[in-house]
């Protein structure tokens, strides 16, 4: 018992040190009593530019139904069939180095970066993917846009909110989130991005997909600004994707907390106490 207590104390003591030394991919959102004001561009709009990191209280991570009661997505019968197909007959597209698209990237735990210009905004993602969104209130969607993973995206400002309206999505090799939930080519996504202060960015995402969902639903999320020296690094997904020959279908069991993973795993052998060969 004494050893257990000492171990607990050691863990507590070194937790702070470990976190302080590290640049974790997600952070605890510590609210400031005096938040710094929202930076603005020369034309007066909020500047969304920055390296943004998810917060630890965004749970369950990777689940597009995060904000729904019981995490229950309003699937149509066709949506239920598509989910079953994804779970039993598809490999996670992201693990095959296929673009995750929107709204999946908004539910990811990985940091991302925004670079904002006057007429275009760029979202840069961890896996070296990007999307470029024109900011043009006069632009209309195409009659028949080429299907893509991020869709045909058009941005415009509504006050201090950047609204991104997207249609024209692919309907194959797409999961709407980490849990293999589906979307169809009828997907329509409206993102409303705000930067309430210098250190936070927020999105409210409206998701409509009448083929696979009986009603529209929302997904909201806040990210925290990274440190000044943090930025995306090179990541070549297909450099050495040994996985692709070993991956099975679906994400594995979805746990009661709404995350993917295993339940009741076998324990690993106890850690080695001495350094080998010494």
């Amino acid at each position, binding site marked *: 018992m004494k050893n257990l207590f000492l171990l607990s104390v050691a*863990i507590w003591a070194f937790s702070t040190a470990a976190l302080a030394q590290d640049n974790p991919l997600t952070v605890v959102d510590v609210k400031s009593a005096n938040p710094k004001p929202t930076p603005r561009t020369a034309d007066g709009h909020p500047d969304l530019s920055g390296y943004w990191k998810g917060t630890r209280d965004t749970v369950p991570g990777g689940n597009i139904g995060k904000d729904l009661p019981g995490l229950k997505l309003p699937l149509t019968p066709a949506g239920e069939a598509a989910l079953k197909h994804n779970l039993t007959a598809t490999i*996670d597209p992201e693990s095959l180095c296929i673009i995750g698209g929107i709204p999946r990237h908004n539910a990811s735990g990985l940091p991302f970066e925004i670079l904002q210009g006057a007429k275009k905004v760029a979202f840069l993602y961890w896996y070296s993917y990007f999307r470029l969104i024109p900011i043009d209130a006069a632009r209309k969607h195409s009659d028949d846009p080429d299907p893509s993973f991020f869709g045909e995206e058009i941005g415009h400002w509504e006050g201090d909110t950047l609204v991104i309206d997207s249609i024209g999505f692919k309907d194959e090799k797409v999961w709407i989130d980490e849990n293999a939930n589906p979307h169809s080519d009828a997907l329509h996504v409206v993102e409303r991005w705000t930067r309430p202060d210098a250190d936070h960015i927020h999105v409210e995402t409206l998701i409509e997909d009448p083929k696979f969902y009986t009603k529209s639903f929302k997904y909201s999320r806040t990210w925290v600004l990274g440190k000044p020296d943090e930025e995306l690094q090179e990541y070549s997904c297909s450099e050495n994707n040994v996985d692709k020959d070993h*991956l099975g279908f679906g994400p594995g069991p979805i746990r009661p907390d709404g995350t*993917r*993973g295993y339940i009741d795993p076998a324990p690993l052998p106890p850690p080695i106490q001495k350094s080998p060969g010494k």
Partner: protein
Amino acid sequence: MKVRLSILLTGFLLAGSLPLLAHHSFAAEFDAGKAIRLTGALTKIEWTNPHTYFYIDVKEENGSVVKWGCEAGSPGALTRRGFKRGDIKLGDTIIVDGYRAKDGSRLIDARRVTLPDGRVVSGASAGDGGPGNQ
């Protein structure tokens, strides 16, 4: 050394609180019911994305040598835990605790790596939903 070991161990324990980040779900590739410990000499190091791989020769009880692959987190993930490319070289003996691939191949998910200098490092792909990394 003791302090460094503790920090690394703590990082391993803390991984349990991280949200989902990974390139793929643990359960899509590995069997959480098949834990295994491998001790072997490094024959190949792939410090690559989306995962690093350590290939080791493992000597069986009958004297034969079997080649195994060990899949770990991305170079960036290992570096953030204090495990750098220069910490290992071909011929070094490492101990890898992990879980076997579901397809039966000689590939394991390296959840925990004991380095030649005795440090114990989490090799897990952060937030893949695997054991010890919810």
